[in-house]
């Protein structure tokens, strides 16, 4: 097997465990993994990551769904909002400093993280 294939397989396993364990997509692992380990562009890494998330989120969703751990009504409502939000976000990204946005959001995440740990 080529080393790129081995790296891809290893990356998928790590990202999949994180996705299943924490109920996230795994992009936070896949995107930097593709850029740093497989030397592809950020744009291709984003696109490739979304395709892998289809597979990992389907598998993790099935496991949570079987155990009755999904609130489908809440999921539908959040989905409606997020589709609209994606359009607004793309517009926003063109006009706002990414650094300011990233630091502001990181602080919100850190506050939520501390709240969840305590």
């Amino acid at each position, binding site marked *: 097997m080529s080393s790129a294939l081995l790296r891809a397989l290893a990356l998928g396993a790590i990202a999949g465990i994180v996705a299943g364990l924490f109920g*996230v997509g795994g992009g936070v692992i896949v995107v930097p993994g593709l850029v740093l380990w497989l030397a592809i562009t950020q744009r291709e890494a984003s696109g490739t990551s979304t395709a892998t998330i289809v597979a990992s*989120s389907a598998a993790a969703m099935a496991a949570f769904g079987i155990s009755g751990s999904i609130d489908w009504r809440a999921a539908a409502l*959040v989905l409606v909002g997020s589709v609209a939000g994606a359009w607004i976000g793309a517009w926003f990204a063109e006009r706002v400093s990414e650094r300011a946005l990233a630091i502001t959001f990181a602080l919100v995440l850190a506050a939520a993280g501390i709240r969840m740990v305590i």
Partner: protein
Amino acid sequence: MLEIAGLIVLGLIAGIIAAALGLGGGIVFVPALVVIFGFDQHIAQGTSLAVIFPTAIMATLAHSRMGNVRWELAIPIGLTGIIGAVLGARIALQLDADLLRRLFGVFLLILAARMVWHAWRVNDRSEPTPDPS
């Protein structure tokens, strides 16, 4: 009624952040459902995945049309990703909700630190890269 509006607004904010910062929705959905809406950690994670899955399909179609998907990498990553995700989900479902919530909190703190570090290093005018994780 208030809860319905709140959940739609949560999706809206998560969608904006995801598209503008290239971050996934999951790291917004899970803490918001737990901290603001009082969801059990397991239900928050399962619900997050139920939003991520259709979002990822739509985003993949858009990226694929623009030629941004490297399928020779996406397919092997997705294959071991399925195995890893089932394993991770089974571990999560075995864990006590309080312990899982604390682990998630630590995960968020690591991500927040990484974001600040990156924001400092990366050129401010760099291009944002959306993905629906």
